[in-house]
């Protein structure tokens, strides 16, 4: 009985925040460095979608506005939402898996690995060999390679030790960062480009980024959600989880692979954007409680909304110049999180 009530409440929270997020995305579609009216924005979107059937006659919008809405803003907003969702969901998963409130999606060296991959691709001019997608592809490969290395280091006799994983992640991150710095020093000509990539952001987004990254991210989040019960059980300790009939090593392995794929896809197309994966899960936990069955979906939805909002501010507040979105995620997220922390101090984690 009580569970059923809770389930209804969860549905309400999830679908409520999901519609809120979609509203935020639509709102942000109308905001940008170039003034395009709300009516025109939605006219363009609707006419673009319906053009497949071409039933209606829409007014002729300026070609430049069509390109701005359909090829610049829309893919950017979709990608930002997906990356925000990925980072927040994986952050929530890792905080549960490692039973550590400091865990974030980058804890297994993913950001350092991705940066190293991207820096190598830029420094060795791989774009001119394999084309534009060389940098995201190299970042993706670097992210997966670092996670795999950390995983191998974290394997102990009895299975996978989360503490060894954490420490291996820290060590490997430091090592990879050192190599990246060395590449930057040796290739001073590309320094600007590498540093710019590492700051992260969505300014170069095209539909190609959306098409390659979003399916991986969505699939990853959905499958991670399937492990919500196991993550709940693991919060009570490995023994309890084992007594509940969970094959811990397999679960951990599956979660690590899924989380790494999801984060790697996000990092490959957006660079390393900090803070979202750390703070959003905590915020959501303070609001909806620690049960992963609601925590993960809610974190994904809130992460998406937060990222879209901060990116919109990043691209408009100093327009035509842009601020790296990572600066803003910390700038807005930090104080808000401290506020939540003070307000609900007793219930924290």
């Amino acid at each position, binding site marked *: 009985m009580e569970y059923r009530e809770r389930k209804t409440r969860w549905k309400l929270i999830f679908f409520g925040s999901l519609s809120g997020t979609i509203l935020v995305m639509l709102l942000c579609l109308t905001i*940008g*460095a*170039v003034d395009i009216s709300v009516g025109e924005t939605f006219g363009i979107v609707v006419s*673009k979608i319906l053009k497949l059937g071409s039933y209606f006659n829409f007014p002729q919008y*300026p*070609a*430049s*506005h*069509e*390109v*701005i809405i*359909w*090829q*610049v*803003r829309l893919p950017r907003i979709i990608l930002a939402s997906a990356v925000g969702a990925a980072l927040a969901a994986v952050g929530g998963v890792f905080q549960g898996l490692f039973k550590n409130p400091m865990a974030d999606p980058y804890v297994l060296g993913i950001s350092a690995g991705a940066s190293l991959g991207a820096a190598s691709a830029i420094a060795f001019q791989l*774009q*001119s060999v394999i084309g*534009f997608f060389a940098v995201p592809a190299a970042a993706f490969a670097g992210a997966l390679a670092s996670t795999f290395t950390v995983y191998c280091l974290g394997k102990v006799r009895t299975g996978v030790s989360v503490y060894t994983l954490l420490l291996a992640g820290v060590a490997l991150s430091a090592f990879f960062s050192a190599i990246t710095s060395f590449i930057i*020093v*040796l290739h*001073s*000509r*590309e320094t*600007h*480009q590498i540093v*710019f990539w590492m700051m992260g*952001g969505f*300014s*170069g*987004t*095209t*539909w*190609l980024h959306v*098409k*390659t990254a979003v*399916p*991986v991210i969505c*699939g*990853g989040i959905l*499958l991670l959600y*399937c*492990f919500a*019960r*196991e993550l709940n059980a693991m919060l009570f300790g490995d023994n309890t989880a084992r007594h509940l009939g*969970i*094959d811990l090593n*397999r*679960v951990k*392995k*599956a979660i690590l*692979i*899924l989380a790494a*794929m999801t984060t790697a896809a996000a990092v490959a197309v957006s660079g390393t954007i900090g803070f979202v994966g750390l703070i959003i899960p905590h915020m959501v936990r303070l609001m909806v409680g620690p049960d992963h069955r609601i925590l993960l979906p809610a974190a994904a939805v809130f992460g998406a909304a937060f990222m879209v909002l901060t990116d919109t501010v990043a*691209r408009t507040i100093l*327009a*035509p*110049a*842009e601020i790296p979105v990572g600066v803003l995620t910390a700038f807005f997220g930090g104080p808000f999180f401290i506020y939540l922390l003070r307000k609900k101090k007793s219930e924290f984690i």
Partner: protein
Amino acid sequence: MTAKSYTKTIVLFIAVLVLLTSLTGCSDSQVTGSNYGGQGRTGSDVYPVTVTDVLGREVTVAREPERIVSLSPAVTEILFTLNLDEKIVGVTDYCDYPAAALDKPKVGGFANPNMEVIINLEPDLVFTSAGVQEDILHQLEKVGITAVVLDAEDIEGVLNNIKLAGEITGSGEKAAEVVSNLQKRIDNVAEKISKTNTRPSVFFEVWDDPLMSAGPGSFIDDLIKRAGGRNIAGDARERYPKFNLEVLLAENPDIYIINSHAHKPEDIKARDGYASLRAVQHDRVYSIEDDLVTLPGPRIVTGLEEMARIIHPEVF
């Protein structure tokens, strides 16, 4: 979820992923750029013009560009030199030369110009530089805007860019005239320098903390050589190497040049340990505006002349 199905889940995930990617991969909705720009042919009948830009991309410019956006301060300078100011509709925040460039609409910074603003200007031609702007270039190609990359690493490259810009914008004659004038000034410096028989050692301070100089592959290194000097950072492994203070003191350059934005010569003379440098003792510390020796635009020749006057004042 039972224990056995975890592996299956992963396999399923990857299968779904491959399927999704292959499905979405086919439906590319590209807006063509044919609506941009004026329709009628203007001026000469040389169009369409096909050029190979500095990244080796073959670009065809269908008709004489009427709305040009420049994302590079050096190219902005070139366009103004070619008297194209009427046609420039957008520049970056960093395009500050000539002063008229400051009045042009801004499209954002150098590394991150704003795509929306660029598209809204409805340009029929965008000039970008290489390196950090390659993401922008990719995005421009995606939305069907003609983009040409102009960047240079030596003086010949700059002259070539001027010719290329002239060819694309229908001002080839003006470009030829500009290039021939610049070439005369370059030859003039070379001729005067050939009459000198000393090669004073030069240290160019790019930055003070950390101490950085300019090595092989940089304009500064090339200019020092052409101006009849010996760059003590000329055998460094990088373009802008960090420079060891001990090496500087041991090399003891005859001439010390700094970037005028950062310091005045007096600051250098007052530094600890610098009093022993030959350049300080003989009062041969100079400053030079960094845009003149780093930007791949026409003013690089002015930079060369200033550098030559600093290093060999006896022949000027």
